[in-house]
């Protein structure tokens, strides 16, 4: 069975349209990235400090009533979120100053007092102090930077510097794109999302490297025609693999998104988006970038 075979799509000619899409995605991502330190993004308590308590009540609850109950007790800024089950409620209070234990305890007692007929158990509690949050923000930033540098070095060493740079730009683009989409969806940026972003970086890079590998191979053959034609041919040759791999990975990521439960929902969603964006970027971003940076000298690709 073949989805595609012997295609001859002129990907490079569409690079301007793709460029517009990429720039839009990247700009949204940049806005999101800038919003985080400015405190405008929806950061989880991992990064901001605060309290998150997840309740499971005996009887179904109405979220508006719960909001009123909390507001009366002085928790006006509480963020309430209900899951698929009507008995589950997540209460978040950002900004971690003072005695966080006391805060989470008093949220619980507010419910006990106001609704004695509907007892609950606490499914999970997170209390994160402000210093921990700031430290994690810094760590996460470093993780992304170190990962990108590591990738740049490896790809530059295995291929050429311009391949490395193109791979890093494409990878960075993907991370930004997923970040941007999450920002638009007003999803919460948590530690788990940073993990997903780094995994997306790894995945998108795999895709890019496979295409680059083919480009390098074709460059060695010293084929006729210009570089753009060579890039097109290379992308077409691996297109079949790109589609199969993206489909299988997407299948896995989507099933985690829809069935994996609340804890990993956003994580899996970021992975799914990353697969789509990563596939797009390896075809439409990474390879065209090589065109922008023409090698003046004849490439000396004798090694490896």
């Amino acid at each position: 069975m073949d989805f595609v075979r012997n295609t001859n799509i002129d990907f490079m000619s569409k690079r301007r349209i793709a460029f517009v899409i990429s720039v839009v995605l990247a700009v949204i991502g940049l806005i999101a990235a800038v919003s985080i330190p400015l405190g405008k993004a929806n950061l989880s308590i991992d990064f901001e400090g605060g309290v998150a308590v997840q309740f499971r009540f005996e009887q179904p609850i109405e979220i508006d009533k719960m909001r009123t109950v909390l507001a009366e007790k002085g928790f006006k800024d509480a963020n309430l979120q209900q899951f698929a089950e009507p008995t589950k409620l997540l209460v978040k209070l950002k900004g971690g100053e003072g005695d966080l234990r006391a805060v989470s305890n008093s949220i619980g007692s507010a419910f006990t007092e106001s609704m004695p007929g509907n007892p609950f158990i606490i499914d999970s509690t997170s209390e994160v102090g402000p210093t921990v949050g700031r430290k994690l923000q810094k760590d996460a930033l470093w993780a992304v930077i170190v990962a990108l540098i590591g990738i740049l070095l490896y790809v530059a060493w295995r291929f050429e510097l311009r391949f490395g740079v193109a791979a890093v730009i494409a990878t960075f683009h993907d991370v930004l794109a997923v970040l941007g989409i999450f920002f638009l969806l007003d999803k919460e940026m948590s530690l788990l999302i940073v993990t997903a972003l780094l995994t997306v970086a790894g995945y998108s890079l795999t895709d890019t490297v496979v295409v680059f590998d083919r480009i390098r191979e074709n460059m060695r053959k010293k084929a006729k025609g210009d570089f753009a034609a060579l890039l097109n041919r290379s992308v077409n040759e691996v297109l079949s693999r790109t589609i199969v791999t993206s489909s299988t990975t997407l299948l896995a990521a989507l099933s985690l998104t829809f069935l994996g439960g609340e804890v990993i929902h956003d994580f899996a969603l970021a992975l799914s988006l990353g697969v789509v964006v990563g596939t797009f970027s390896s075809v439409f971003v990474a390879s065209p970038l090589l065109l922008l940076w023409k090698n003046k000298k004849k490439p000396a690709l004798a090694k490896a």
Partner: protein
Amino acid sequence: MRSIFWRVILVAGFTALAFILFLPSTPVSKRLPSFWADNIPKINLGLDLQGGMHLVLDVDQDKAVENHTQRLAGSVEDALKRKGVAFYNVVREGLDNVAVSYPDERSKGEISRVVKDELGVFGSPADQNGRLLFTLDKGESERIREWSLFQALETIRNRIDKFGVAEPLIQKQGVNEVVVQLPGLKDPERAIQLIGKTAVLEFRLVDESMSPYTAETQGAPFGSEIVYQQGYDSQTGMVQKTPFLVKRDAALTGDSLSDARMAFDTQYNEPYVSLTFDSNGARVFERLTTQNVGKRLAIVLDGNLHSAPQIREPIAGGKAQISGGFTPEEATDLAIILRAGALPAPVNIVQNVTVGPSLGQDSIEAGLKAGLLGAALVLVFMIIYYRASGVIADFAVFLNIIMLLGAMAWLSSTLTLPGIAGIVLTIGMGVDSNVLIFERIKEELHAGRTPRSAINAGFDRAFWSIVDAHVTTLITAAVLFQFGSGPIKGFAVTLSLGILINLFTALVGTKLMFDIQSERFRVKRLSI
């Protein structure tokens, strides 16, 4: 490794080893012979899967230095008195200074000399009109900071060991933090109480020269201070604070305890904590009670007065008790805390993540269901798309998962929910290596090669793509491992192991199946 036979042995051997390693981690373990189940390391379930508590405690090292300096101030005073050097007073100032006021130039020199000879931990004193300011050596205060962290670690470990939690993890993080993980914990509130108590126990004589209420308004006399007893009125639910005027110096501290246990007072039907002093403590206690019959002795824990019984007669034998409206749990926990010793400095909880057992159960179910479905979809897709070769790819993925589980058990790594996602992702990406190989083989077949040479060429051509793709993913996994904590570390471990194992299963396992096909069965047409 040209011979198929030896490669079959290799792959089968690894698979068998993986089975031996991971079976004890599964529910099957109950039916395995005990020498097998008991001697093999197991995969741990992360807190997100089994519930439990993750605490990050910040040790207040400044306070440790301050406490130490306070004690040194006492030693300085003692030393000066012993040597008969004249001085006005000795006080601790700030974190690490001891200030000594001197009456004249002559005693100034003597003070300096005595402190230098007796306590070599200060640098040269600064002279501030009429006072000598001794500052603790930088090296010494660093040592105290470091020591306070290790001491806190040890104390917390002792308390938790006595509390009885299976497989707790207690380790240092950074320069001033302690991480405590208590999997499967039922009563998080109690654990926090247990871990967080500084537990500085002091026996102090009550100063009866003035009524505590007078002292509250007029100030306590020299050498005494006011300490409150927090009473909890069970009828009104109000907390009452009763002031006591007690001596500033502790007559005896918790350091002198050799044992503490919960006991039951049958007369009042009330639990109390029974204390046993070590031989030195017992002597001090006997002397103290002998000299102060009729007076009251306050028992102060972490600055709160618990009880202040009257000394009716000298108490020999080194036994004492703390009573005062405890529940049996409170008394047990207090005994644990006293037995494990005091924390060298207060600790603050800077991060607390607690997952209830029922959420863990839900997460396992949802995660496994999604994971299994995702894996099944991928496997079925491969068979539909690549036919018999798809079966080979599935076989390689199957080997990958078995070996991944085996490796995880071998390293006793922790399986977390993101870890399950990592396994599923490994399947998705593990399939990729096979796809790369298959597509190459297809190309070679289209170019008119025989199956056997197409297979060999396909593997050769795909080899570097596979390696490059794996190494780059490994780089991000390594970064995740380096900076991540808890569930994220779990994800990074699973992902890296999966990637490494996949290199083996794709390049050796898949190749082996193709070689068997082409060399043993001499297949004319590849089903791919």
